[in-house]
């Protein structure tokens, strides 16, 4: 897909995020905006998937797990814009009886979601499990996952990291949203991850890095990651992003991790984001 077209989609995704969180008066806009470019790239270009025939097992399809479930708005928008469910349904986000729960769930059967997430640290294990099932099934497709950087403070992530390398689970590509911020403040102040690149390397992973707002760079790094599958090592991409990317007053701070903008703030944000595909 043309880079300019991906930018157009991402701009609409950002509008969706702001409007969903604004309308619900709750949700997590910061990390959602920061991952809008990445998820647009993943769903509109990188992954081999079938939005029109969603099934739980996804055999012969690439599968994605959102481990940091609180950034559900960006995932819901990208899923809807890809065709998994009607775009109008985005307006039900976080409202009673919605399929678009505050954090992703499977019990209301929203197409595109295969695992509940929200309690952090669990999605990497799930991704690795599915990757191993795919190997048993002789299915060569890839399992992608996304994790918050703060989420890496959970111990289960490192249990999973150790396991995947030891067992040569080389059909999984995990991405870390390295925005450096979490609820209580800067990640460095809350609990430093130290040298993240070296940590993953020491755990036996192939480590790549990319700028999560540069479509061309993401395209080439994701292609490189894909090319490295099947080589005996799991792959992780440390992706630099800016929390709140695209909305000036949400950038450069951790304060919009989990706060909804007021109606006036929604308007101020939308003024900065071009409506490209039509609002829901």
């Amino acid at each position, binding site marked *: 897909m043309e880079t300019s077209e991906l930018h157009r989609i991402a701009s609409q995704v950002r509008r969706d995020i702001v409007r969903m969180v604004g309308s619900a008066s709750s949700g997590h806009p910061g990390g959602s905006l920061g991952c809008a470019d990445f998820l647009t790239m993943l769903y509109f270009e990188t992954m081999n998937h079938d939005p029109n025939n969603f099934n739980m097992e996804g055999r012969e399809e690439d599968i994605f797990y959102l481990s940091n479930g609180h950034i559900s708005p960006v995932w819901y928008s990208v899923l809807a814009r890809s065709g998994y469910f009607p775009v109008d349904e985005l307006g039900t986000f976080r409202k009673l009886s919605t399929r678009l729960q505050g954090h992703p769930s499977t019990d209301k059967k929203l197409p595109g979601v295969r695992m509940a997430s929200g309690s952090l640290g669990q999605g990497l294990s799930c991704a690795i*499990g599915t990757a*191993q099932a795919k190997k*048993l099934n002789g299915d060569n497709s890839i399992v992608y996952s996304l994790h918050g950087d703060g989420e890496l403070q959970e111990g289960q992530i490192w249990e999973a990291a150790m396991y995947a390398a030891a067992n040569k689970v080389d059909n999984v590509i995990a991405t870390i949203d390295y925005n450096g911020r979490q609820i209580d403040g800067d990640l460095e102040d809350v609990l430093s991850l130290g040298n993240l690149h070296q940590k993953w390397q020491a755990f036996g992973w192939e480590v790549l890095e990319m700028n999560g707002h540069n479509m061309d760079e993401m395209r080439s790094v994701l292609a490189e990651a894909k090319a490295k599958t099947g080589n005996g090592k799991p792959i992780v991409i440390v992706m630099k992003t800016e929390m709140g990317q695209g909305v000036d007053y949400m950038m450069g701070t951790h304060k919009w991790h989990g706060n909804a903008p007021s109606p006036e703030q929604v308007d101020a944000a939308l003024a900065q984001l071009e409506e490209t595909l039509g609002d829901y």
Partner: protein
Amino acid sequence: MTEVATFEVLGKKDTRSGFGEGLLEIAKQNKEVVGLCADLTGSLKMDAFKNAFPERFFQVGIAEANMIGLAAGMAVGGKIPYTGTFANFSTGRVYDQIRQSVAYSKKNVKICASHAGLTLGEDGATHQILEDIGMMKMLPNMTVIVPCDFNQTKQATIAIADLNGPVYLRFGRPAVPIFTQPDAHFTIGKADVLMEGNDVTIIACGHLVWKSIEAAEELRNQGISAEVINMHTIKPLDEEAILRSVAKTGCVVTAEEHMIYGGLGDSVAQVLSRNNPTPQEYVGVNDTFGESGKPDELMAKYNIDTPNVVAAAQAVLKRK
């Protein structure tokens, strides 16, 4: 007095060996069955499965949280994962992983838990979980099964593969009498009335089923006719079996190797209070941790032995 069945003891074996044999059997029948173990393959009796199906066995090391997540992910890929570790590490240690990735996500994962309760023995209270039935039965979508002997554990292990959803299967460490038939069909959610009686209903699960049979035989010598129900499925609970029996006897004893809070007894009490309030006595561990000792010594010290079931029956009869 009603004619009482007598039970022939067919031998003695640990229920975990029933799990090991059942897993091997179901793996032969169903190629989607996979097994995961957290460094307790020998204790869980998973070696035979591992040797027969090495490509379907996953050694995860001492990392139970990861094991539950892996299993949930494998279930997405169409597998039927059986996870194996001690009951304590199968539940309390990984409650949130089970809650979100298995129960809420409704994944076809079988959480198989050995060394449950006091009969784990010498390792002591750190490992003797007595709260696991309660934790697991509180989770929506979860089926909770506590079979009574080697044969039934084997049959239950086979049967749960056909149930598409999360299951908690609880069994134990010591060798205990085998008294169910090897070919008896296991029906999830349907209680077995082992002995018929008119004076008192004894509802038990796991190791306490045999103790209850012993107690019923002792009660018979005292002229008391006890009905013994093996409530191997705690959830979904066979309410009909409870109500049918209680309509006849008018009083109940529940018996389990578990805390009295949150276990089988609580489930039975809820059915009775809603439908037919009935005097009930509880045989179970009373709000305390266990300790090191031999299984039989611990059962006696913590009042979950045959004489305790007899005494509870005598007590509840006086409240009719």
